[in-house]
């Protein structure tokens, strides 16, 4: 830090040009830089504080200290390092403005013209004389260009989804279970009650099974007797229980907000509202389709089971989604 006479670097084969800075008699230097001992000491102290701060952050992180210590150590450390760097620039570096001339990047006019002429003339002759090779090379480069696009296309879809978007773990006679895997008995909900349910067995699957997210269903007891949500679904609501996919048809948020006097399901993300008694038709908000309804029945032991899986893809729309079961029937 004490040697302030620097030499020009690089440019071995060219004429070395000494940089016009970093001498104590440099007119650009301020008073503090001309006699830097005191400034250097202060800045070093500030930087030491910064080092202590970030090292303390590391120690706090390793020791799992309370968040306030993480915040204080990192804050003090980064602030001191930044402050030291700024002070270094402000008090020890020469002040501008500096103007440095730069040589022309382009070649001379004559060089460029002769190069262009040679390229056009000779390459024309070469390709005309070797049509086959020229064509093959061109074709190869063309195919390479197309192949080079493959990663781009692949990045749009890591793998083709197949029918994953269409199916869930709900099937014929799948028991409804709560988050703990306990089956749901017909006496479980009072009228006006709501709970989230899953297909039996899906929760015990491997963690790689991402279908559980699209499996989730919101179970609501609307009445004490069966009712018809949409014509053709008359026997889907035993003893007033109705079940809809919990995944919003807009962007897939969990539609878990049930207002039992209004009999509305509300999506927390964009405030779509679905009529629970009328087949979860959206009456407000951006959701484009009703929530798919899960046909229910009660088995011999009194537990709720599905009659079948969803009659349509659950969740938000996708390119190839059919319009089947859009509730327009």
């Amino acid at each position, binding site marked *: 830090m004490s040697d302030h006479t620097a030499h020009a670097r690089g440019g071995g084969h060219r004429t070395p040009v000494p940089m016009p800075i970093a001498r104590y008699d440099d007119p650009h230097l301020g008073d503090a830089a001309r006699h830097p001992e005191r400034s250097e000491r202060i800045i070093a102290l500030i930087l030491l504080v910064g080092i202590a701060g970030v090292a303390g952050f590391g120690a706090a992180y390793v020791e799992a200290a309370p968040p306030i210590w993480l915040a204080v150590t990192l804050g003090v450390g980064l602030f001191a390092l930044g402050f030291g760097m700024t002070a270094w620039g402000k008090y020890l570096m020469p002040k501008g403005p500096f103007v440095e001339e730069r040589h022309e990047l382009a070649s001379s006019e004559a060089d460029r013209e002769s190069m262009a002429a040679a390229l056009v003339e000779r390459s024309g002759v070469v390709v005309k004389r070797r049509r086959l090779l020229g064509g093959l090379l061109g074709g190869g480069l063309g195919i390479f260009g197309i192949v080079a696009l493959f990663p781009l296309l692949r990045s749009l879809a890591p793998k083709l989804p197949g029918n994953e978007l269409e199916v869930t773990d709900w099937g014929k006679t799948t028991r409804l279970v709560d988050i703990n895997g306990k089956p749901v*008995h017909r*006496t479980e909900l009072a009228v006006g*009650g709501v709970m989230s349910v899953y297909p039996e067995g899906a929760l015990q699957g491997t963690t790689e099974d991402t279908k559980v997210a699209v499996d989730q269903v919101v179970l609501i007891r609307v009445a004490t007797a069966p009712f018809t949500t949409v014509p053709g679904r008359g026997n889907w609501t035993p003893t007033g229980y109705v079940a809809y996919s919990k995944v919003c048809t807009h962007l897939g948020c969990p539609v878990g907000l049930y207002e039992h006097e209004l009999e509305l399901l509300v999506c927390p993300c964009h405030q779509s509202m679905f009529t629970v008694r009328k087949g979860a038709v959206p009456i407000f908000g951006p959701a484009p389709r009703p929530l798919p309804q899960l046909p229910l029945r009660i088995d011999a032991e009194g537990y709720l089971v599905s009659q079948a899986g969803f009659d349509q893809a659950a969740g938000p729309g996708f390119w190839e989604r059919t319009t089947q079961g859009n509730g327009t029937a």
Partner: protein
Amino acid sequence: VVATPPLSCQAEVDKISAKLNATGTGAPKGSTTIQCTGSQVVAYGNPRVIRYTRPTSSAENIAQGKILFEQNCSSCHSADATGSTKAPALRGVVGPGTVEFWVDTGRMPATNLLKVQAQRRPPRLNPQEASQVAAFINSLTPRAPYVPTVTLRHANLTTGASLFALNCAACHTITGFGDELGFSTNAPTLRDATPAQIAEAIRSGPGNMPIFAGNLSDGQVRDIVAYVSKYIQHPDDPGGAGLGGVGPVGEGFVALLFGAGGLMLVCFWIGERS
């Protein structure tokens, strides 16, 4: 709209116990203790978890409740509590726990009938008067839920937190601040609710709130009440200022306006000085 039948005694008591223990998970086995006087249930539940008690049904208590009901409630709910075009029926529909929730939170008597949802405010009737009105309603047609007393001593806050996230946070938000819902309704903040009011709300489902009967055991309700009254109402706020727990929009606003704005001022100051 509520399906629970009126109470008489043992047969109805069995129905309540069956409903309370229907979940199995977390419901302490054989915990339901019942007291009957004549043909009426006085209390049910487990004194170590939640005990549901009928308000004192002495003759003067009911008479006093009748007077209070006529003064404060009957103009909308009608003198015999069968409701009118302005307000729903209470007789045979609500239990003492429901009545005490609405009166103790100041939502009833309502101030503005044009409002879709009554808001919490300082109660007009004191707790004793609320209990008398509840006793009067219960004397017309006895019904659950009774008034809960929650014992928080053995509550599990961790269980309460996960149950809260599963059942309550969708509307009340994970910090319990509450949120707007459809058609001018809202899920109110939980910051001011007492343990008894939280349990009453879970069991009776006031307004648009769902009713949690069989799918939450008394032990689970106790855990949720403990989580709300011990953590939601007294959050740790490890990052410093909690900013009321209103959510990412408010926090982002503060970060942008004061954080980024302050940095801009510092940059401006540095630029001015050099």
